[in-house]
């Protein structure tokens, strides 16, 4: 990822650290710089919030319905495996 040589993060750097931040993978120093940036930047705060919402929405994606035909097929297979 980005190497953080400059003292203060700019937005373009901060957004690339969001996943490392949420995963708890930043060093203490980088985490503090990230959090300092967020405190002063409403846009990046909104961005982080949107990423969180994206994750929550992804968790709401439900599996497709299994068709009755596919279910029947697998049940038949199960009976065959059991009898083998």
């Amino acid at each position, binding site marked *: 990822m980005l190497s953080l040589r400059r003292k203060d993060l700019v937005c373009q750097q901060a*957004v690339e650290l969001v996943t*490392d931040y949420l*995963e708890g993978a930043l060093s203490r120093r980088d985490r503090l710089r990230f959090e300092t940036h967020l405190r002063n930047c409403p846009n*990046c705060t*909104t961005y982080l919030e949107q990423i969180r919402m994206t994750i929550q929405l992804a968790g709401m994606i*439900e599996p497709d319905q299994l068709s009755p035909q596919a279910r029947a097929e697998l049940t038949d297979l199960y009976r065959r495996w059991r009898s083998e």
Partner: protein
Amino acid sequence: VRGRYPSDEVAFRATPRWASGVDAEWLGSLLEGDEDAFVMLVARYNQPMLRFAQSMISNRAVAEEVVQDTWIGVVRGIDRFEGRSSFQTWLFSILANRARSTRWREHTEIPIDTLDAVDPLRFDPDGRWADPLDAWTEETNDRVDAASLLPALRSALEDLPPRQRQVVLLRDVEGLSHDEACGVLGIGVGNQRVLLHRGRTRLREILEQHIERG
């Protein structure tokens, strides 16, 4: 790495609504050869498995075969399931192994690029946001509105490059931990994080476009 932060930010993840913990009961019945238990497990996991298999194998028929083959493996190997991982993780590990070893496997390991995930055009020359971001609170706080975003999110997920899709599916849709996802995919934490980052960044972007269009 886990638990180094005192905050609740650590490995933030959503718990899929449909994944309530009744596995243990069914597994016991399956072990006794109960067909109903098998049907319940199939009803719950077959489609998520198929979706995951298709992220590894683009040919639908081959993906279906691999899923079926995985069920055979589960029925035959259930007595070897030791409960050291969750049933879901065990299931996806068998599936990933079978998908990897299928001779139709099409994708090869591609080195992960480390370019910025967010479009550089969103920033001014000093690296600040060129335009302010709008909060989504209204759209996503309302359950009905949130549900209306799901079709767009779903198709965006389908359009992700395969390796990003695999990681996002396991982490954010299926709710596996990073260790579990790395185990299933046979990749390191660092790579997993880069793929997750790129995938989530893209999904956010699609949602943003969708919300702005209204």
